[in-house]
């Protein structure tokens, strides 16, 4: 059983872990080029802290203490791996540098952005970038990430390990890209963060984004990137987009846990503080006069949010924003949402025509929101039989039981409305 000191030590260690995990990994990885060993060394250092601190007291500079222990562990690992003489001076140099940083009372240099750029490097498979960032920056374990991304824990563990090996063996740099490369490289980082945010939302309907438990972590990462690169408007755009979506969390479910689509949500349940922060970010970004995908998507959310003042959604603005998005993005999700906006402005038939253009896109055949959007527009156009079939597809593809139940209700209501023939 843990005594008072044990509990305090555990609490301190947990606080340091929450606050500094990514910073410590980033610092070690930048100097060793080895993400996996940096993580291993750090987790051994945390284990050492839990056994050492209760007895000898929490150190004045816990981060420095952890860094010093992690450094010793990492040098031991390196020694075991490489026996060649020529590696010794290099190890010594690295050890000295880490030591100097550990000794300093001032903060450990923040290399987290460099670590994110390494994780979202073009040489790393796009599908593993978000999981990699979640693991290295936040210390999430492979099993938790695997569940969120609907992959087996064993496979996720292997993919993460493979990506880390690639970073080490390909010599991927832990650095912030040059000006010329920055937009494209930053886009990959932002896409990874957004993928983490949107994960689990694949089964939500239409423009509405769902909510996995990764959302909070993704927003934290978004804040970090926005604070480290405040002159890049897309970092602000992404954070604004995530905050807008997050603001609606309480309105997304009814008292019985039932799914409430965006159009039926009560704006008074939206979180005003998050919306205000998102709007401020968007305004800041707009002043830089370089629009981009995330700013446009955030602006769409902003046009939905005006309903809290005016009582109605600004669909005309939303249609224009999706027109602009469609020119820079080939995402079928953008195309679906554009069709929904067209239907709102110019009628269901026009929306159906826009959706018909997508019918050949194979990515959509098993994409539930596509079928839900088809069903809704077909129903509004009075094409009951086709709408029922589209609902059937959407129901069969739904993952979220609340969404499934919602779609079933819609389908049933539709059948009820059909006049007997």
């Amino acid at each position, binding site marked *: 059983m843990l005594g008072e000191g044990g509990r305090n030590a555990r609490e301190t260690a947990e606080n340091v872990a929450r606050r500094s995990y990514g910073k410590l990994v980033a610092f070690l990885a930048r100097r060793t080029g080895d993400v996996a060993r940096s993580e291993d060394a750090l987790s051994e250092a945390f284990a050492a802290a839990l056994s050492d601190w209760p007895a000898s007291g929490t150190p004045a500079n816990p981060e420095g203490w952890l860094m010093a222990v992690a450094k010793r562990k990492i040098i031991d690992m390196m020694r075991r791996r490489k026996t060649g003489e020529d590696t010794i001076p290099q190890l010594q140099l690295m050890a000295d540098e880490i030591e100097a940083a550990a000794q300093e009372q001032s903060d450990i240099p923040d290399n987290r952005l460099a670590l994110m750029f390494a994780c979202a490097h073009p040489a790393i498979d796009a599908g593993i970038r978000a999981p990699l960032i979640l693991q290295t920056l936040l210390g999430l374990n492979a099993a938790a990430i695997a569940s969120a991304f609907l992959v087996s824990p064993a*496979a996720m563990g292997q993919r993460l390990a493979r990506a880390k090996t690639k970073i080490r063996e390909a010599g991927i740099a832990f650095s912030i890209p040059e000006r010329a490369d920055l937009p494209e490289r930053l886009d990959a980082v932002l896409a990874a963060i957004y993928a983490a945010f949107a994960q689990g939302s694949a089964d939500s309907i239409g423009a509405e984004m769902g909510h996995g438990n990764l959302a909070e972590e993704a927003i934290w990462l978004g804040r970090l990137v926005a604070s480290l690169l405040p002159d890049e408007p897309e970092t602000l755009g992404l954070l604004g987009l995530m905050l807008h979506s997050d603001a609606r969390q309480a309105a997304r479910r009814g008292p019985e846990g039932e799914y409430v689509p965006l159009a039926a949500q009560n704006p008074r349940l939206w979180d005003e503080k998050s919306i205000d922060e998102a709007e401020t970010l968007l305004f800041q970004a707009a002043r830089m006069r370089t629009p981009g995908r995330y700013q446009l998507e955030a602006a769409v959310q902003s046009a939905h949010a005006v309903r809290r003042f005016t009582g109605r959604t600004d669909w005309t603005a939303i249609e224009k924003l999706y027109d602009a998005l469609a020119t820079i993005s080939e995402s079928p999700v953008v195309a679906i949402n554009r069709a929904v906006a067209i239907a709102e402005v110019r009628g269901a038939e026009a929306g159906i025509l826009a959706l018909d253009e997508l019918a050949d896109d194979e990515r959509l055949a*098993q994409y539930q929101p596509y079928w839900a959007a088809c069903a809704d527009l077909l129903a509004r156009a009075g094409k009951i039989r086709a709408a029922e079939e589209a609902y059937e*597809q959407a*129901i069969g*593809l739904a993952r979220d*039981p609340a969404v499934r139940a919602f779609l079933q209700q819609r389908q049933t209501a539709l059948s009820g409305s059909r006049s007997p023939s």
Partner: protein
Amino acid sequence: MKYLLLIYSNEQAFQSMSDEAKQQGLAAYGAYMEALTKAGVLAGSNRLRPVNTASTVRVANGKTQVLDGPYVEAKEQLGGYFLIDVPDLDAALSWAARCPGASHGAVEVRPVWTM
């Protein structure tokens, strides 16, 4: 690759649902089966009768033993299966998550041993 999706759920819970809820539950399975068929991945499926209809047979030391009931008594019972043919485990897991059984019970995903 073929994967067997085994659906485990609480039979009692299903039996005690209202008729309307049962209807909705079965309709969800119907829609799921339809989606599997449209995607061209369905290789077979059956719903099983409740475990009180199960018998378990074992032959040991030349003696045959027949017992009433399922092989394992558990809170959740094997209620049916879908056999699907998909490229990899990721795809199988993705279909398993869409199975209504994953929301009211659990779906075990097992790769089929092909000879």
